[in-house]
């Protein structure tokens, strides 16, 4: 399908979900997960201000580098790894077809 990419999300129980994501709706990974009813809170609505959409990127897609805001917010997250990102800062585009992510554990 045109303007649709396939993304694989591993939930916190280890289950894999293949999700079709539109690239022409201005969507990000946090919103895509929420629309697929995966347990991603997106508390702040996507402003990189809460880290509730913390996820790990497991494929080697070239993502835009983290902004200072995103890095700052990851400072307040837990279980942060080198491949940690905030889902709300990953905007769906055609070159992300085949992206694989894993939802990070939820802190207390």
């Amino acid at each position: 399908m045109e303007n649709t990419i396939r993304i694989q999300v591993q939930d916190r129980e280890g289950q894999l979900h293949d999700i079709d994501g539109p690239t022409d709706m201005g969507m990000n990974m946090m919103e895509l997960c929420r629309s697929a009813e995966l347990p991603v809170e997106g508390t702040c609505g996507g402003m990189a201000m809460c880290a509730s959409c913390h996820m790990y990127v497991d494929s080697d897609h070239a993502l835009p580098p983290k902004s200072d805001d995103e890095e700052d917010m990851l400072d307040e997250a837990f279980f942060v790894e080198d491949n940690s990102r905030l889902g709300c800062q990953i905007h769906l585009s055609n070159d992300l077809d085949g992206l694989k992510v894993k939802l990070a554990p939820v802190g207390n």
Partner: protein
Amino acid sequence: MIQTDILIIGAGPCGLFTVFEAGLLKLRCHLVDALPQAGGQCSEIYPKKPIYDIPAYPSILAGDLVDQLMEQAAPFEPGFTLGERAEEIEKDEEGQFILTTNRGTKHRAPIIAIAGGLGCFEPRKPPVEGLANFEDHGVEYIIKDPEFYRDKKVVISGGGDSALDWAIFLAEGVAKEVTLVHRRTEFRGHLDSVQKVMDHASEGRIRLMTNAEVVEVQGEADLQSVVIKKKEEGMHTLETDHWVPLFGLSPKLGPIADWNLNITKNAVEVDTFDYSTNVPGIYAIGDINSYPGKLKLILCGFHEATLMVQSAFKRIYPDKNLVLKYTTVNGVNGF
């Protein structure tokens, strides 16, 4: 005992607008909020962010929206209990609710409006095993009184302003020893705070451990040491009297969950006729409620608040008739 007509839990935009709409019906309001200031998320998380979907405001900063709502509510003299979390509710013999906060402040009202947004903001707790055992025994998430740390060894975690500011403060002649542990080498605090920490570190007043995190707490009844994992060098055990993890705040539904309300997915179910909950006299408005078609938008919360106070009025004065009056005709007559 604080008596009011509508006790509003949550002083965010929706709670504040409730004061105005209730005031038009001559109902008095009192607001309770766990945060020390009014405004909810708008003040706490994103005061400097512009909001573009408030009708008639093409753009307004969240902080300014709160200021405007405070001004709009002012003629109706709302009361505030800030910095206290609504904890318990019970009913007295006259059918009024008694709400007690975590600090013991008691409020009494015939109507409760929960405008709690995402819940109450609480410190983020790092996922370290056994951490809860040391809470108030060496582990604190908030520094209330720096004197508490006089001549003590303190480990602070975090990279934001509060971590930096407290590390500086405690290092300047308060604590015996200050260690600042941070996930990476860059800090997000104000540049001058970062510089000050670096200066203190090079002069030995702050032990700075970057690319590091606390992964273990040790002790008997009281905290005795923490284990710090450094990215390159591995584990490092550090004796300390206190560990203060400062990782910001995140919202939790909190005690509301125990009020016998119907709750699904962290939201209170309401009837869209008047935003009443399953408990007569308790309403839920704004981001905290849930109903088919719900949108978590400030403007929807304003609508919900407006309809809710009409229903609240009829509960308080079942024999009085209520006629919608326009502010353009009657103006705003404060208390």
